[in-house]
Structure formats: structure tokens, C-alpha cells
């Protein structure tokens, strides 16, 4: 059993995303994020863990390009620009709500990113169907969002985020509104998808257990102003199943993360 260690220094290879000295102040004067320095390596699974109001969602949105930082920079060292001069971030985003188009079927929702990239319809449809099958929704292609349960809607949302085969998947507390059992299932399936496809995953959560069971690395953030408190490594092998979630190692990791979070909140 290995104890998690606090990382310092940067990975040897070039990171996918380099967040350097980033602050974000909103129009009303709130300092949501203060001086965050963070590198996201290719293929790693990182959780941003913190209490509500710690700016983790704001940080995630800035990484996605929704809103620019007030200070500092977010660089994508290995990424090129498209013909229109836009950074080809090549990312998928999963919101806290499924955020599906209610007028479109599951497959039409999943196809949308491809349609927007002007892919031909038969090809887009085939890839969307394949993606729906991967998230366990084969047979539900023609269902409308209102005909699906909360967990299934979230699966459609994940399928839509992954259908472009992005290099990085950003998730903003995606399972927070779901019940415990559904959340466990989705966590397992998400890990399996990540394990097979090896995209970089950034997972915003306020659940210690979720962050420990999913990620290789937990970035603990404190609130008001939002800042990074600790960068913990979760040194446990995958696949992480129910066996892992009942192990002593898991309990130990949770305690360490929990104590760090407590310190972050107490500040």
C-alpha cells in the first residue's frame, strides 16, 4: 500500500494544457479564481475537488474557452490553430445537467457535434450509433430525451462529448444530480471508456469518494478566492471496481483527501 504523495514540479513531457497564473474576476467584483498554476498531462485522469464556490467550474470553463481569464494564460502547447485562427482545442464538455436538445432524438443529439463540423450524415449517424452503443444505449437511438431516465440522459451527454474522439474530456460535476447507484454505474463506465480510449479527463466534483475512486490525481481547491491547495497523487491500479471501493487502501486515500479538503475549507 502506497501513500499518496504531493507532487511538485512538472511532468517531463509537454503538457496538453498549461494553466499559468490564471485569475478570474467577474463583473461584480467577485474573485472566482486566484493565481492557479496547473499542468494537465496527456491521458491523465484529474479531479478538481473542492467546496462549492471554489471556482472549479469557472476554471474548467476557461480551459474549454468559455470565458477568458482576467490574468494569466491557458496554453495548449501541442495544439494547432484552424484556418479561421481559432485554437483547435479538440475537447468534449459534459455539463452538470445533460443539456440535450429536447426536440432531437438521442442519436440526433449525439450527432450534433459532427453535423456542426460538416460531416456527411450517414457517416455521422454511424459514428453516433457506435458511440451510443459504447455508453450502453444501443436500442435507444430514436428515443427523445424526455423518454429517458436521468442516468440515460447523462449517458447520451457523455456520448455526445466523446463522439468527436476528443483528446480531452471536461466534466463539470456531471453525476451530482443522480442517485448513488446510478452514479456508481456511470463512474465505472466512464473509467472503462477512459481506460480504452486514453483521452485526458478532467472531472470537477465536490465528492471525495468520487474523486478518489476515479482519478490518478486530485487537485484540491479552496474557496473565496478559488485557489489550488494541494495536488494529490492517487497511486492505485485500474480497473477500480467495487473491490477497490471497499479496500483499506481506498479508505486511506479517502481520509487523506478528506483531511486536505477540510484544511482547504477551514482556511
Amino acid at each position, binding site marked *: 500500500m502506497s501513500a499518496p504523495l504531493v507532487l511538485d514540479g512538472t511532468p517531463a513531457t509537454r503538457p496538453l494544457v498549461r494553466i499559468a497564473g490564471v485569475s478570474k474576476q467577474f463583473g461584480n467584483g467577485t474573485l472566482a479564481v486566484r493565481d492557479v498554476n496547473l499542468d494537465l498531462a496527456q491521458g491523465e485522469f484529474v479531479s478538481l475537488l473542492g467546496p462549492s464556490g471554489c471556482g472549479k467550474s469557472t476554471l474548467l470553463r476557461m480551459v*474549454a*474557452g*468559455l470565458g477568458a481569464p482576467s490574468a494569466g494564460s491557458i496554453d495548449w502547447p501541442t495544439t494547432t490553430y*484552424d484556418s*479561421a485562427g*481559432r485554437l483547435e*482545442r479538440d*475537447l468534449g*464538455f459534459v*455539463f452538470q*445537467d445533460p*443539456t440535450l*436538445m*429536447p*426536440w*432531437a432524438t438521442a442519436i440526433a443529439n449525439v450527432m*450534433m*457535434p459532427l*453535423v*456542426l*463540423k460538416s460531416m456527411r450524415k450517414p457517416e455521422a449517424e454511424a459514428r453516433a450509433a457506435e458511440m451510443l452503443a459504447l455508453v*450502453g*444505449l*444501443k*436500442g*435507444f437511438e*430514436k*428515443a*427523445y*430525451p*424526455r*423518454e*429517458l*431516465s436521468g*442516468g*440515460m440522459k447523462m*449517458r447520451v451527454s457523455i456520448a455526445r462529448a466523446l463522439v*468527436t474522439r476528443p483528446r480531452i474530456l471536461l466534466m463539470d460535476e456531471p453525476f451530482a444530480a443522480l442517485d448513488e447507484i*446510478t452514479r456508481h*454505474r456511470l463512474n*465505472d*463506465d466512464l473509467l472503462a471508456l477512459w481506460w480504452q480510449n486514453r483521452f485526458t479527463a478532467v472531472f470537477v466534483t465536490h465528492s471525495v469518494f468520487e474523486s478518489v475512486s476515479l482519478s490518478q490525481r486530485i487537485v484540491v481547491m479552496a474557496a473565496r478566492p478559488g485557489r489550488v491547495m494541494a495536488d494529490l497523487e492517487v497511486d492505485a491500479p485500474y480497473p477500480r471496481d467495487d473491490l477497490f471501493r471497499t479496500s483499506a487502501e481506498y479508505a486511506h486515500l479517502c481520509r487523506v483527501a478528506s483531511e486536505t479538503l477540510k484544511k482547504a475549507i477551514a482556511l
Partner: protein
Amino acid sequence: MTDSVLPVAHDGTDAEARPVFAQERRILGVPASTWPGTLAPVAVGILGLAAWEILVRVYAVPSYILPGPLLIAQTLVQDWGTLSGALWITLRITFAALIAAVTIGVALAILFTQSKWLEKSLFPYAVVLQVTPVVSIAPLIIIWVGDLTLSLLICAWLVAFFPILSNTILGLNSADHNLVNLFQLYGANRWQTMRYLKLPAALPYFLGGLKISGGLALIGAVVAEFVAGSGGNASGLAYRILEASYQLKIPRMFAALVLISGSGIAIFLATSAIAHLLLRRWHESAVKREN
């Protein structure tokens, strides 16, 4: 038969999938459970008409004060030649006005949502057009335009277009903000955002506006005809009502009134049916509650 989406067993999928379209017994193509709701108002109508007929006969009310329903029906059949021609003229103006209201209303709404400044500077004038009573400007329009049919069309359009404009603007602006973000993330251009996101999101609002405007177009056409008050071959139902009142042909007046109300109801049912067909699979207003 409705398309049915049936739950399929999967590994790793939530078991809470629910069958959505349960088959129901149908009578004459209408689900059995909706029949009482349809029959109740019909029964009330028949009772009311019967009471009317009885009262008119018992108190021997002269037909130039209040004709009974049977006499009105008889007049409707007798005068069908004149009345149907007038009905056709009124309906033509109504539909032309409604089509113009939809086209111009939606086009302006799209234009307004492209630029906040355009909306800010032009929308107040749309409101001015809406709040000015059509009766008060109809004479002016008739003088300015010259052509009677066109003047009537403009009057009916003035009344009908505002609900479509304001509802469609509301709808275009009410697309889920995170979906707008998502479209931005995927680099969607204005046209794609409009076509795949904003227009579908605006559809329920537009259809709500259409339901109101359908009735208003008819009212606008009738009111404008009253103001114009001219005879000749371009005279619609409103003129027939005026004419009948001068000649004290009250049953004929009622018959024309029946046609106007009937047209209004038909327009409402038609727009409701369109809305239901377009929204039944996804919008909360059109789907049945399942509890």
C-alpha cells in the same frame, strides 16, 4: 399506431427505462379516454341551443329581435349563395394576412435577435403598431392604399403580426444557455446555431403566437370590413352583417355571425392541431403526463 420506444435490456444501463407510448383503445381514431372530454362541451351546446329555441317559442319573441337557432340554420341554408361568397372573401383576407404575419413576424424576429441594437431601435415601433386600435387607422389606410382588398389585408396583418413577432423573439432568446455554449465550443456559425438550436427552441413559442394570431387575423379582417363598409363584389361577412342590420334581416345577421364564429373556431382547431403534431414527441405542453 404510434411509434413505440420500448425498453431493451442492456448491461450497464439503468433499469428505470420506461415504456412511453402505451397503446390505448381507440374509437374512430380517437383514444377512448378523450371521448368524455369531447362529448361534454357538445352536450352543453346542444342543451343551450334547445333552451334558446324553447324560450323564443314560449315567449313568442319576434325574429327581428331574436331568431331561434332553427330559423338561423334555415336562413343559413337559404342564403348560402350570398353568404358563402362573403365567407370566402373574408377567409381569403384572413389567411393572406396570417401568412404575411408569419413571414414578416418570423423574419423580423430573426433579424432582431441578430443585433441587440436593431431590436432596441425597432421593437418600440412594433409595439406602437400593435397598441394603435385598428379601427382608428383603418380609414387612413383605406384612403392611402386605394385598393380595398389590399387595405383590408394590411389592417388584418397589423393586428395579427405582433403576437408572432414577440413570441418568436422570446423563443429565439430562450435556447438553453449551456446548449448555446456547446454550439460555441464546436465552432458553430450563426446559421448553424440558428437552424439547429434557436429555431427549434423557438418553435413552441412561435406556435403559441400562431394560435393567437389566427384568431386575431380574422378579427382584424372583420373589423376592417366594418370600417370600410363598402358593398360590391369585394364585400365580406362583416358587410353582410351591416347590410342585414339596415334591412332588419336579423336571422341573416345571425347566420353571418355563425359563419364568423365557426371560422374562428376552425382556425383555432387547425393551429392547435399543427402545434400538437409538431410538438407531440418532445414538448411538455403537448405530451401527456404519465402519472
